[in-house]
């Protein structure tokens, strides 16, 4: 069973990717992209987990308690923040696409069209 978290990370990644490939709406596409990204949270936290490890916050547990890895947790925090910023930026682009071309279907967005 020790492979399960990684398997789920792969599954979320591919499900999100399928959503991106089959998308008919830019907002749907952006949300699918954030699904792809959320697989990285699971992957990072899965890598740093130690069986029965406590959270690496030593307020009310002794210093030598077995705890999970803090570096991947900090990376996950970075991941979440950057993900939110990128999602906001992409949604803004979707708004502009709708204004300029009158459509949010990626199939109808033609790069050669004015």
């Amino acid at each position, binding site marked *: 069973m*020790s492979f399960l978290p990684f398997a789920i990370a792969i599954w979320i990644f591919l499900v999100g990717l399928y959503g991106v490939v*089959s998308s008919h709406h830019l907002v749907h596409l952006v949300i699918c992209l954030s699904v792809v990204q959320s697989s990285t949270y699971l992957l990072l936290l899965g890598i740093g987990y130690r069986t029965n490890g406590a959270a690496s916050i030593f307020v009310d547990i002794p210093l030598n308690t077995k705890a999970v890895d*803090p570096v991947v947790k900090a990376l996950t925090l970075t991941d979440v*923040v*950057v993900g939110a910023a990128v999602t906001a930026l992409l949604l803004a682009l979707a708004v502009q696409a709708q*204004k300029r071309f009158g459509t949010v279907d990626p199939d109808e967005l033609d790069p050669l069209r004015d």
Partner: protein
Amino acid sequence: MSAGEGPARRRDSEISFATRRRLFLVSGAVLAALMTWALAGMPAFGDYHGIYGLLLNRVAVPQEHATNVITAVNFDYRGFDTLGEEFILFAAVLGLALILRERRDEEEGPPDDDAVGRQVSGASVAVRLITVTLVGPTVLLAGYIIAHGAITPGGGFQGGVIAATALLFVYLGGEYLALRRIRPLPLVEITKATGAAGFVLIGIAGLIWGVAFLDNWLPKGTPGDVFSAGTMQLLSVAVGFEITGGFVLILSEFLDQTIVLRRRRGARSG
């Protein structure tokens, strides 16, 4: 955009949806196999032995007096990375404001709710009461989360997002115009810029103090106290300012798009 181009128009080079899906299923299966192969070579789940992280778990409290090791990693041991992360967010919000700026063919109109002859029932009294009651505690919670970043779970990033949601409560419970009054955009932008600059300045202050950039130069206090962990708490507040300003700006820009900006009559796109 030229007229007469229906959505039905398809280019010759375009592949059909079914073909695209088949292509994805094949390549997705290959990708899944490769990923499984790669991840199978990883240390087993729950059996991680990264020296760096485990060392930090042991030394962060005695060395930096920060009981939340994750904050210690973010604002001290790898503070330089967080500086980069902060500027990614800064650049993204800047880009968003630039993309969503008022275009030449748009004009700011009154919000839909205020249109002449329109009867808007507005939010019910219950919704108003709940949201107005929640604004204060939300801001307080945000302050608490930011101030205790180095001690318990939290910090500037988390607290900043919570503070920005207070704005959404005002929008949900009240009118858009009330929202505009409590959210003077220049002040929001100054908050955000102060946060970003503050992070750098706190780092540079370390150089003046005679230690490395972003090194912890303040007295470190007792672990577990609010005034402990030295510069980490200051950095957490700086990040809190930047995130609050950034997310308020993001939310405001999107709300402005839907509510106030409309195409000028007779204007052409492009």
